[in-house]
Structure formats: C-alpha cells, structure tokens
C-alpha cells in the first residue's frame, strides 16, 4: 500500500522546491543565532539552548526527508486515524498532564517534553484536507460537520488552557474552509458568532490571563507585573534602530531585562541586535516562504494537496503575525513560538513536519509528468 504512492530519491530530487527549503533553513539558522545570543547573558552564559536547538533541527530535518519519502498521500490516507490519536492525546493530557506555568500542555519523558497541541496542528490540517475534499463546505450540512469535528479539538485546547494554540487552530480552520469554498455569508456568520462569543469567553478566563491580554493596550497599568514584559520587549525592539546593536551586543537581552528571551521573545532579541534591516529580512523571508508554499498549491491538481498547503500556511502565518506583533507590544502575550525561530523541540519538529507535507505536494506534479512520459 505504501509503495504505490511513496517517492523514490529520483522523484524527490526532480520535484524538490529548492527555494522553499532554502528559505526554511535560512530562517532556522537566523533563529539559532538569536537563541545563542539570548543564552549568552552577561556573566551568566550558556550555549546549551543553541546546542539543543541544533540537535532538534537535525532531527527535524531527518523527519522532513522521511516525510518526503513517504509522500503526503499516505499521510492523508491515515489522516482520520492521526486526528483521532491527537485528540486522544489531548484527552489523556487533560487528565494527567504535568503542569508547567499554570497550563497543562506537556508530556514529559525525562528531560524531553512533548506538546500534543503542536502535533494537533498538523493532525488538524491533514484531517480537514481530506474531510473538506470529500464534503465541500459550500452546503450548510458539510460546513457544520467540518466545524463540529474540528471544533472539539479547539475546545480541548482551550480546556488546557492554551489560548494561543486555540487561536492558531481557529485560523487554520477558517483559512481551510474559506479555501474549500465556504460561501461568504457563512464565513461572515462564523466571524460574527466568534465576536458574539467573546464576552462569554472573557468571563471564563483567569485573572492573570485577562491581565496578559489587556496589558499590551496599556502596559503602564502594571509596569512591574504583566506589563513589564511588554515594556521591556518594546524597548528591546525600538532600541535596535536601523542597523541594530550587533550580534551579542543587545543590552536588553544580555542584561536579563527580557523574560523568556529564547522562546516567547526571540524576535525581540533578534530585532535588538540586527535592527530594522534584520527584522525586515526575516519578514521578507517569511513572505517568500508563504509564496512558495502556496505556489505548490497552485501547481498541484490534487484538491486535497491544495487545502493542505493552505492549512500549513495559515498555521505558520498566524504564529508569525502574533509573535512579531507581540514583541512590539501590538498583540497580547500568548506565548506562541515564532515558527522555525523560537527554542523548543516539539514545536520545531512539527513545523518541519507540516512544511515537509507541503514540500511533498510540491514534488507530486513532477511525478505526474514523469508518469506521462513513460
């Protein structure tokens, strides 16, 4: 079963979208530099995070190649099973997960942590690609089915509670059903329902979560508490100026004013040291990446593959928007990693996995040509 749609090395070489892969690796490399810088504080320095991230990067690259060999079609075939597995893991986590920072979001195996919420993102994309293809959401029944089946996952994530990831899931779902043909009035209704649900949602939040959501509007209401991070991050980004302070010369990061510099605030570290020029290069690299991701969608004839590209793009896009905007104090602090950039093993691995699925879609048309020749 596997062999018919898996790919040979020759097919992969022939169809590989090199610019896409190079953009991914360039972003990872810039992230690695920033992680190293974030760890190299004054008088208390560690290269440990950067080294571990490099190891995770190597593992992720292996996974990337493995996915290319297997081919996205095989993952789509098993997508319902994968989705059920992700849901099951979230349920188990809800019952016995270990608590980190007030949120149940990790499975711990010794020193290695695994976040089912990250796995769930890829599972959701695979699931909706297949489901929306079989039941296009242009009729109310199908759309309701897609929303219900993906909604239960969002609810499990919200129960953790992991607001940031829930928003990522939401943007994946919205982008995919939009691309799959949901009529404008349904989408409008969905957006309106989301806005209407806000007050209920707000009242269910814990006090610290509310504070984290509002401080970005006016960080000075709590300058030493929740607002502290916003103020210090904004100072880091702003003081970078046009050219930045130079590699390993960012004072905000190195003097420990920035909290969580290697994860949540990695862009602040980068922007302080490499300035406006560096920041724009990163944003342009991401824009280029989205262009290549969706180029794969245009070139494939497989509608499921098209949806898959949209889902992965929406996932990465939302995290980029949120993480970069947060570093400037323009979005609430949700603790989402900047894709390919932030320190963190399971998020990096799953990002590479999602991007490998898209690369696999990009490779597939080459096979069709190859097949027609022989």
């Amino acid at each position: 079963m596997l062999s018919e749609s898996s790919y040979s090395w020759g097919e992969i070489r022939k169809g590989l979208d090199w610019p896409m892969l190079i953009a991914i690796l360039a972003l990872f490399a810039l992230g690695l530099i920033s992680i190293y810088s974030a760890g190299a504080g004054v008088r208390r320095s560690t290269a440990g995070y950067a080294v571990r991230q490099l190891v995770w990067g190597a593992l992720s690259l292996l996974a990337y190649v493995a996915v290319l060999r297997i081919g996205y079609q095989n993952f789509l075939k098993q997508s319902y099973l994968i989705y059920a597995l992700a849901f099951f893991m979230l349920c188990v986590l809800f019952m016995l997960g270990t608590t980190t920072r007030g949120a149940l979001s990790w499975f711990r195996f010794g020193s290695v942590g695994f976040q089912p919420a990250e796995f769930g993102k890829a599972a959701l994309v695979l699931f909706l690609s297949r489901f929306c293809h079989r039941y296009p959401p242009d009729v109310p029944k199908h759309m309701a089915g897609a929303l219900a089946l993906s909604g239960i996952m969002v609810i499990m994530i919200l129960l953790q509670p992991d607001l940031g990831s829930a928003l990522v899931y939401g943007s994946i779902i919205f982008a995919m059903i939009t691309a799959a043909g949901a009529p404008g009035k349904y989408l409008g209704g969905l957006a309106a329902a989301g806005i209407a649900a806000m007050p209920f949602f707000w009242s269910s939040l814990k006090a610290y979560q509310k504070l984290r959501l509002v401080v970005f509007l006016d960080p000075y209401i709590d300058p030493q508490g929740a607002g502290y991070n916003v103020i210090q991050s904004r100072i880091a980004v702003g003081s970078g100026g046009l050219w930045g302070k130079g590699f390993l010369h960012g004072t905000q990061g190195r003097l420990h004013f920035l909290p969580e510099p290697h994860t949540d605030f990695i862009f602040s570290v980068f922007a302080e040291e490499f300035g406006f020029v560096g920041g724009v290069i990163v944003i342009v690299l991401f824009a280029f990446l989205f262009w290549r991701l969706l180029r794969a969608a245009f070139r494939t004839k497989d509608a499921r593959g098209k949806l898959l590209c949209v889902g992965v793009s929406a996932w990465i896009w939302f995290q980029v928007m949120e993480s970069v905007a947060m570093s400037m104090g323009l979005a609430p602090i949700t603790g989402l990693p900047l894709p390919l950039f932030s320190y963190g093993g399971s998020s990096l691995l799953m990002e590479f996995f999602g991007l490998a699925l898209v690369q696999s879609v990009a490779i597939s048309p080459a096979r069709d040509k190859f097949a027609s020749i022989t």
Partner: protein
Amino acid sequence: MYKGLERLDLDKRLLYVRNILIFSLSFLVVGLVYFQLIKADEYVGLASGNRLRMIRLLPPRGNIYDSSGVPLAVNVRTFDIKSYPMDLRLDEDFEGVASLFARHGIPMTPEGLREIVEKQYVAPYRAVSVATNLTLAQVSDLVMDPGFGQGLFPSPVWRRIYPGGSLMAHVIGYVGEITREDLETQRDPYYQGGDIVGKNGIEAVYEEQLRGTVGDQVVEVDSRGRRLRDVNYNDPLKGNDIKLTIDMATQREAARLLEGRRGALVAMDVNNGAVMAFFSSPAYDPNPLTWGISSKEWSALLGDSARPMLNRVMSGSYPPASTFKVVTAAAALMENVITVRTSFFCPGNFQLGPQNFRCWRRSGHGRESLIGALRDSCDVYFYQVSVKLGIDKLTKWAKDLGVGERTGIDLPGESRGNIAGREWKRSRHKEAWYQGDTVNYSIGQGFLLMTPLQIARTYAAFANGGRLVTPRLNAAKPPEWTDVKISKAHIDSIRAGLREVVRVGTGRVAGGYGVEVAGKTGTAQNQHRNDHAWFVGYAPANDPKYVVAVLIEEGGSGSSVAGPLVGQMLAYLDRHGK
C-alpha cells in the same frame, strides 16, 4: 455522480488566501518602521538608562522552640550594605568601595569584593550584599563617610542565633549561605545567591516550613544610582515556627551526664516516639557557623580528633554487643526454637568444631534458662540458641525490630547501621557465612552495627508491647509506628529478664535512683582500644514511659560507666513527670 471539491473554482480562492497572508505581513513592517525608525531615539535612551533596580527582601525564618516554649533558634536584626552590579563595573568602583570599608575597620580587598559580587550575581539591576552582619553603629559610621554613595545603601536583614549554643547543636543544626551547587540543582527556582538556607538538623529538614516567603522591592533610580521612588513593594512573610518534643532542661541534664566523655544519650517516649533528650558529646557551637567562619576555623572543627561535628546519637554506628541479646531471644521464642523454660549449661565456653567461643565469665554460669541468661548476660546460652535458630531467621526478626534500617527520625544524615547477614557478607567479603559468624552475631558482635537511636527504638518496642515507633522531634508531627507482631507472652518473658538485670543482675548500678528501671548492659569490643560501654533501659519497669540509651566511646564496661547515666536520666524524667 460525486464530484467532490473539483466542481469549485479552488484556485480563485487560493489567490485570495495568498494575497491576504503575504500582504498582511506589511503590517509588521509598518510596526518596525514606527518603533525602530521613528521612535528609535526614544527607545535607545530608555534602554541605556534602564533605571529599574530590584532588591530581594529576605524574610525572617520561623523560630524553633522547645516543648515548653523556650526559644532555641531566633532572629536578630543586623545590617547589610548592598549595591547593584551595574553600578560596580570598573576596577575603580571595586577599589573605592574596598578602601571605604577598610577605612572603617571592616577588612576588604578589591579582589574579595569582586568575588562576593560574582557569587550573588543574578542580573545587573538586582542588588547584592557587599558587606554583611554590621551593627547599627558600624552602619551609621559608614554612611557618614563622604565616600559612601555611588549605589551603596544599607539594608536591614535577619540573622539567625541559637541561644542554646552547643546544647542543641546536633538537633537544631544551623543555617548558612546557599552554595553554588545547591543553586544549580534546586528544583523550584526559589533561591538566589546569598540566600540563607538550613544546612543541618531541624533547620535543614523543615527548611520549606521555616524559610517564609521572600518579598521584593522595585525602585527607580537616577543616573547616579540614587533612589527616586518605589515602583513596587511586596512584604516578605515570616516562616512558620516549629515546636520540638525536646525540653531544654532535660537536654541540659543529658549534657551534664555526658560531660567530659565522648558518647551519646537519647531519651524517648516509648509510646509515641517523642524524643525527650538527644545529646552527642562533645558538641559544637552552631552560632559561629551561621555568622560565617573562616575556612581555617572550619577545618579545625572538622579535623578535631574528638569529632564534635559527628552526631553520635544517629550517625555513629557501634556493635550493639549484649544489648542485642533481646533480639536473639525474641527471634528464638517466636520461631519456637526455645521456650522460656529451655535451659542450656554454661561451662564458661562453647565449642563449635575447632572454634572455641568464651563466655564473658570464664568460670561459667552453670545451667541457665532465658530469664537467668538475660540477667547474667550469659553468652554461652545465646551461642547455643543461635546455632539452633540459624542466621536467616535471626536477621529476619532483627530487621523487623529496626536493625539495619533508618529509624526515620526527622533529622538529616542518619546512619543505617549494618544488619549484615549472608548476602551482605557474600557481596562485601566474597565469603560464605559460617556458623561461627552466627554465634558472634547472637551477642551483638561481628559485623553487626547499630546507632544509639536504633537501640533505643528497639527497646521501646519491647517496653510498649510490640510497636516499633518512629522517633520524632517536631511536636506537630503525628506519631507513627509499625506492629512487630511479637506475642504478648514472649514480650513479658523478655521484660521479666530485663527487670532482673537491674534488680540483681549485671545492671544493678542503673537502679537505686528512685525509679524502677529495666534494661541491659553492653560492652562492645573495640579493636586495639578500650571497649565501648552501652546501657539501654526503660522505666518505670512495670508501666514503661521512657526509654534511654547511652553509649560511651571507649568507656570500658557498660554496667559501670553507662548504667548509672541511664538510671539518673530515667529518674530525672520520672521525677519531672515529662
């Protein structure tokens, strides 16, 4: 026919999605333009003059009291001089501060100062203590100096003192500055360099209860490091107090009895495990340790041949000698190897193959049964019993009576002793267990080792009718015990023997202090040196309340040296109705 998604014009929608995703990123670029180009100067200024400073306010630790409320560990206010690492960057800064202190009689070198700062460093805006333990007079003297300033400021801190001095050292322990290794291995990131933690004793075991909650203060300073205003203030919260089961007067009596000797005394309530006296001699004064002593003084303390830092009550392991005979007796009775009437003839020695084992009394005891054998501490009787019993059954009961296991007292560093036995000898000495080993074992010699606390606990189990209690020092800790499952009749037989010991037997010297004592002597062979003397006893003999175990290192015969001390301690406890 099913057509699925292909009937829709997917690519048109893809185009929308692509444009939205890519062009929305320009919002981020606009943000960067605003903050990094338009407002850059403002933020560069904010970054270079990050004017927030944090001070960690350490809470006073909880007090420790004795059972009647006498303070054993309390806090006094002294002063630290603090500074921020970001204000101490240049060599001149270090030289200036060091010479300021030197001018006012506080010894300090620039290198030493740099070391102190490094050790406590967390972040440049987090205060570190430059000098500690200053009096109010010293501080006011310093502050008046025109050289004082530049980011230096006095800060009141709590220091630990132990009014009981060396009396309670082995119980209370002491506090000290947290070490680098502890900082790096701590699970919860509560501590920071310069923090004070419990290093030993009750201070260490109940650290989390005693330590309280740190507070912090965030202040804004001007460019010269002077405080402008408080931004935030969280009060530190005092730790919880602890009340002990020990009473200071009883402890003082224990110290008096052991004066001039190397040894240990422990007294315990036989029913609930409450420790009433716990003294290891010689002791040390914990006060200098908490205030910081030089490494020379520290190594002198550790190198002292009398070993004052050794907690002999629970960390000193000794052969239990004849005090172990009750364990052999209980095992033999429970395994039906003997009855209380079984008798053996003691000619003064016991021949096992080629080996000859002597009784302590060369002329022999004649015919002895259990009660007489305990009374006279007849070795040959127990040699005979052990050969019939075998080592495996003996170690099984020894284990049930707490031999070779930590007692579980709420103090750190307790020794396990050594229960020995077949497996132990095979893995340790690569040798099989011989019957001769069992014979030695039966009278508490050979490989067997116990702590005074273990022996007290074993005897408490006989005194209270068969419950192995867990010794405890914290009065708030509920009593715990396990049932040893020795039948009442057998316990009564052994207790009758122990009573005879003091009434007419080898332990007569423990009687005559005004309370009826039951107990056992022990004389532990000590290679090339004088023997260790043991006595363990409980009182009142017919309704036991307290057990006392005494060990005197190189004290000679257990009956003459240790016996009277146990008798006096039990009489003291009885008289004061503790």
